[in-house]
């Protein structure tokens, strides 16, 4: 009996073993031995690289140090930032002006650093706004947004702000094709094929960084997704991936995935320049905002422009060429030599790599396969260098290490795959946690990559950190790629949703002439107060201008009486400090906007409309000194029509002595 039961038990164990023997164990996320050492930057020591990371739906750009993953700063770009007063202060409100009026938020996807001779030069960082199409330029001396230009005739500026190798142009595109601005836009949506167009904008970048739309190319109505400029031998060309060549206008997830191949559009922008010179462009009326921040006045000005030059890709036959690319291409990346163009069909199970030389030959020998809406389609094989076979599932983006290797992210199979550009052989693969989107190697899309680290920006975080309710931070992961094999060394959470990022050697930016504070004598803000004695309060009708100063640890004036309900009060606060890292804040009770954070030597203005009678305190919000808590003042608000005279003082408004 016993024996029988033993045997039966044995059999059950066997069956159980059978079921569990097949199931692969979770390979887990074991970080090998020296990872901590590789990512460790001792307190007080500097990181090797600056990492500029797009903020996605936060609208901002965050700055991290590599390899430590330490957050250094969040630079407000397309979204208002109550903590610094960006978009709330009178000086910065014009930065967010558009042809639609003031837009307080955007979706910031990609960043690109300025380049000289194809190498990152540490002057500026460009950032795109996807929702209300714009490009911003950040000055890397001040880490401030100094210019924003709106793109007309566009919607969904996704394939932006990629630049040419000497920062001649920064481009913008149209992910959601729409009827052009000056056309009658009131058309049935299902007339997409006739009425919708995809515009590409070439924005000229001047010596001081100033942006100006040089020309736009009118292309067929498809979804332009990503882009990169040619470099080296392919300098003079730009490559844009596009999907929805089916021209669907509804349920795109199905209807825009039908064709086996969509396109990468190659744009000969040098040729386009010639046509512009030859007067082949059409001037088209439209409306777009151009906002510039002046460092001397600490103020932005917004100007609405009304004209743009448009070249037709259909009529000017040799500007644009379509290269077939499998299955809804997303990433469109050019290797450091400029010879290889990598298209990543996000639904494809292979990666096509195109050759610039072959492309030129194909164009010369007219190896075309018909045309797409008037644009020649090059034969797939004629431009193809080769395909990376079985690389993974859902390829998205590729960066380069400058040693002949490419690194491609795979969203669906959640991994980064390293492969050889020439032989197209897969060399290594590492899992990411989870579902990686973009990746960044310092200088990884330039002619001179610094192939030491690779950062993967993941779309899904799930169980990687302590839980924080339904909404979780997104995550980045740093890999050491200096050896043959990629090695995970650090995870760090990010601001918003990180899309593309750029990184540059720290010295390039640290030594670019970083501004430590604004010189008070150079402060040309019309409302600046350059000494306590100049502080004053002036009433003109119901507008009251308060010329206020702040210095450790008081405001001047700090007692103001004679303000009436319904007045428009402007606090122009000048920080008189002339030392590094002594900002002062300014906040007033009941203000319906935000605070001001004023850098040394700077003047900022907060508008305040008192609604209630009473005494209203204001104070400094940035812990500036040992007596920071004493840095405060009062405003007396009287009823509208009251006869309390306007007075202001510092230190003199004391109780009457008996």
């Amino acid at each position, binding site marked *: 009996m016993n024996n029988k039961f033993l045997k039966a038990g044995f059999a059950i164990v066997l069956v159980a073993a059978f*079921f569990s023997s097949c199931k*692969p*164990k979770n390979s887990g996320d074991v970080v*090998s031995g020296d990872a901590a050492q590789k990512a460790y930057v001792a307190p007080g020591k500097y990181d090797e690289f600056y990492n500029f990371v797009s903020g996605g739906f936060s609208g901002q750009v965050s700055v991290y140090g590599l390899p430590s993953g330490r957050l250094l700063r969040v630079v407000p770009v397309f979204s208002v930032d109550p903590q610094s007063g960006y978009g709330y202060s009178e000086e910065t409100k014009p930065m967010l002006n558009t042809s639609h009026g003031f837009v307080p938020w955007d979706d910031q996807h990609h960043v690109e650093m300025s380049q000289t001779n194809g190498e990152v030069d540490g002057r500026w960082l460009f950032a795109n706004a996807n929702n209300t199409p714009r490009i911003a330029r950040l000055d890397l001396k001040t880490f401030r947004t100094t210019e924003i230009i709106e793109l007309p005739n566009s919607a969904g500026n996704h394939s932006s702000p990629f630049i040419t190798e000497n920062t001649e142009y920064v481009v913008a595109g149209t992910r959601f094709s729409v009827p052009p601005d000056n056309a009658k836009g009131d058309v049935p949506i299902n007339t997409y094929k006739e009425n919708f167009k995809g515009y590409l904008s070439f924005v000229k970048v001047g010596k001081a960084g100033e942006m100006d739309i040089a020309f736009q190319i009118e292309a067929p109505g498809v979804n332009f997704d990503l882009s990169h400029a040619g470099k080296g031998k392919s300098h003079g060309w730009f490559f844009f991936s596009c999907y929805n060549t089916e021209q669907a206008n509804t349920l795109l*997830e199905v209807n825009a995935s039908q064709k086996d191949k969509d396109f990468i559009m190659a744009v000969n922008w040098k040729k386009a320049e010639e046509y512009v010179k030859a007067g082949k462009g059409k001037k088209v009326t439209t409306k777009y905002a151009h906002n510039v921040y002046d460092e001397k006045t600490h103020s932005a000005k917004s100007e609405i422009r009304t004209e743009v030059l448009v070249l037709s890709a259909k009529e000017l036959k040799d500007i644009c060429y379509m290269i077939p690319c499998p299955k809804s291409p997303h990433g469109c990346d050019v290797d450091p030599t400029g010879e290889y163009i990598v298209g990543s069909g996000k639904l494809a199970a292979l990666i096509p790599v195109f050759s610039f030389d072959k492309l030129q030959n194909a164009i010369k020998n007219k190896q075309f396969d018909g045309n797409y809406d008037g644009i020649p389609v090059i034969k797939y094989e004629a431009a193809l260098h080769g395909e990376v076979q079985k690389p993974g599932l859902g390829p998205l983006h590729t960066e380069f290490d400058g040693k002949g290797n490419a690194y491609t992210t795979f969203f669906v199979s959640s991994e980064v795959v390293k492969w050889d550009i020439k032989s197209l052989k897969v060399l290594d693969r590492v899992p990411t*946690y*989870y579902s990686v989107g973009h990746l960044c190697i310092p200088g990884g899309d330039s002619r001179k990559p610094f192939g030491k680290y690779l950062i993967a920006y993941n779309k*899904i975080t799930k169980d990687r950190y302590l839980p924080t309710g339904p909404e979780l931070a997104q995550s980045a992961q740093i890999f050491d790629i200096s050896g043959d094999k990629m090695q995970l060394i650090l995870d760090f959470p990010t601001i918003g949703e990180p899309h593309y990022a750029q990184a540059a050697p720290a010295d390039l930016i640290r030594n670019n002439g970083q501004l430590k504070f604004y010189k008070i004598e150079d402060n040309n803000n019309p409302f600046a107060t350059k000494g306590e004695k100049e502080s004053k309060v002036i009433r003109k009708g119901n507008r009251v201008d308060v010329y206020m100063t702040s210095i450790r640890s008081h405001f001047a004036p700090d007692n103001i009486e004679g303000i009436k309900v319904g007045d428009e009060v402007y606090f122009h606060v000048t920080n008189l400090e002339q030392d590094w890292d002594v900002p002062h804040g300014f906040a007033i009770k009941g203000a319906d906007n935000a605070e001001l954070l004023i850098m040394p030597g700077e003047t900022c203005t907060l508008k305040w409309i008192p609604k209630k009678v009473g005494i209203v305190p204001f104070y400094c919000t940035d812990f500036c000194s040992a007596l920071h808590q004493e840095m405060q003042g009062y405003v007396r608000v009287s009823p509208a029509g009251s006869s309390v005279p306007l007075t202001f003082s510092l230190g003199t408004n004391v109780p009457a002595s008996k």
Partner: protein
Amino acid sequence: MFPFFIPIVMNTSKISLFSKVLLLVVSALFFASLSFPMWRIELEAPQYPEGLVLQLHANKIAGDVAIINGLNHYIGMKTLHTEDFPEFTILPYIFGFFGLFALAMVFIAKRKGVIILFLSFLLFGVLAGVDFYRWNYEYGHNLNPNAAIVVPGMAYQPPLIGYKQLLNFGAYSIPDIGGWMLVAAGLLLFIIVIKETNLLKKIKKQNIQPALFLLLFLTLFSCANDKAVPIKMNADNCDFCGMSIADGKFAAEVITEKGRDYKFDDILCMIHYTKENSATKIGAYYVNDFAKDNVLIPANTAFFLSGGTIQSPMRGGIIAVSNEVDAKEFGTKLNAKPITWEAILNK
């Protein structure tokens, strides 16, 4: 099944009390199984670390049905709905019937009846398996040609039982609690049948130990994805040192538990690789048989020699052969000493 037919014809007598008690348990198991899921298909993908599960009850589909339907729409698989499967209306009655049948047998206590119950349940099991396979096939192959992701030649049929990789998802199909109850019921019925027909005594004359060991062997090597992938000489590169594999006497290969293969030009390269990638779980190690040309043999059954005049490509100095005779022969020829697989792994 054949041995059971003989006793059916011969025996119609009453069953023992022990069998009656077991039958009562069987009946209870049948009824209880109705309130538990019968089968589960677990799905795992990198971005679903917590896993997704589809649970098949006797009367409904449960688990993460909505999420799985949402994912399946990318590949154009039909969405799963309980009402699309007539089985879910019939199955509860079938299990109820078996439960009542077993209960009835406690009272009727006819040996023949018990055997009929067992055989009909066995038949049901086979039919259910066929039916399950048919549905799996139907859903895995009948894909919307307009789906967003179409991988040529790819079908998404989950395994009937066991593990299978489907794109980025690993699918793992096994019985759930209710299913295990039915398995237990089947086993108990089997025991009753054996006991009542004295089958054990009839078989005992033959030794069943080898059969058990065969079963154990099958269990341990049940995963087909552990099979060695042939190395292409001068075409495949070593996954550790990067050099092309040129000598079919020293090469090695690992198959990871996920079914990926990594090839090496030297046994030591394989060991170094597995050390550096300790996170990768290895399913099987293979080494070249030194006595032959480019023949891979499982490392855990091979005989190893080390040192002497062995000159392997990366100076690992280790060779493997498939049997002891060869080991002795090459040991003398090359002046090499035997070494165990464990010792090599710990090198």
